[in-house]
């Protein structure tokens, strides 16, 4: 797992420029934000306030992803990298626990799939 020596790029364009990796990571953040939005939309039908709360997380996730995209090409993660991922992990766990609460105590929505 070593990079080619400077000035001797490999055949793979990515070995010359992490820009594509950066781009893929940016898109992965966007997908994660969309996943939050989708879950929020689903929860809306079951519990309106919780659904709105989860929907509100989606743009925050998107912005957290943009935070890591700054910096000169070739630079690594900012020191805030760990905090961003920690926040995502906390949000997903919190959303899961909220959903667990809704699943246990919530009211069944009849005919929602019809």
């Amino acid at each position: 797992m070593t990079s080619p020596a400077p000035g001797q790029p490999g055949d793979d364009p990515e070995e010359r420029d992490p820009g594509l990796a950066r781009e893929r990571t940016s898109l992965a953040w966007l997908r994660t934000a969309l996943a939050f939005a989708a879950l929020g939309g689903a929860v809306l039908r079951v519990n309106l306030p919780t659904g709105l709360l989860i929907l509100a997380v989606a743009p925050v996730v998107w912005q957290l992803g943009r935070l890591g995209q700054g910096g000169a090409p070739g630079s690594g993660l900012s020191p805030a990298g760990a905090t961003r991922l920690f926040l995502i992990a906390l949000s997903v766990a919190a959303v899961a626990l909220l959903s667990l609460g809704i699943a246990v105590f919530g009211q069944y929505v009849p005919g929602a799939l019809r």
Partner: protein
Amino acid sequence: MSWSRRLAALLPVTVAKDNGGTEPDPRFTFANERTFLAWSRTALALVVAGLGIVQLLPPFPRVPAGRHLLGLPLIALGAVLAVAAYAEWVGSQRALRRGEPLPPSVLPWILAATITLVAVIAAVVLLVSALR
């Protein structure tokens, strides 16, 4: 290592202070981050599935607790995966910095075990609800 020290090693403050080894190739750092994000989305998808089963599916005949038996493990798995994925990201980033082999991943094992469990529960619930 005790549990409290293990947990403290996962806090972002501790992770950011880790300056052992050298900064890895940015592509590896990005790839590690994407893997974490992919696991997070998997966790969210499991939560959606679990919530959908419990709240939106009509009840199983003769098995009133059937939906909860199926949905609650999926939602709980979502919470576990989110935390485990972060721990794994920390471990991988640590190994990348030091040029060590990546630690083996337990996430696929957790996911496969829970999905198998849920599939077995689903089969039992369906059988019982179909039997007269």
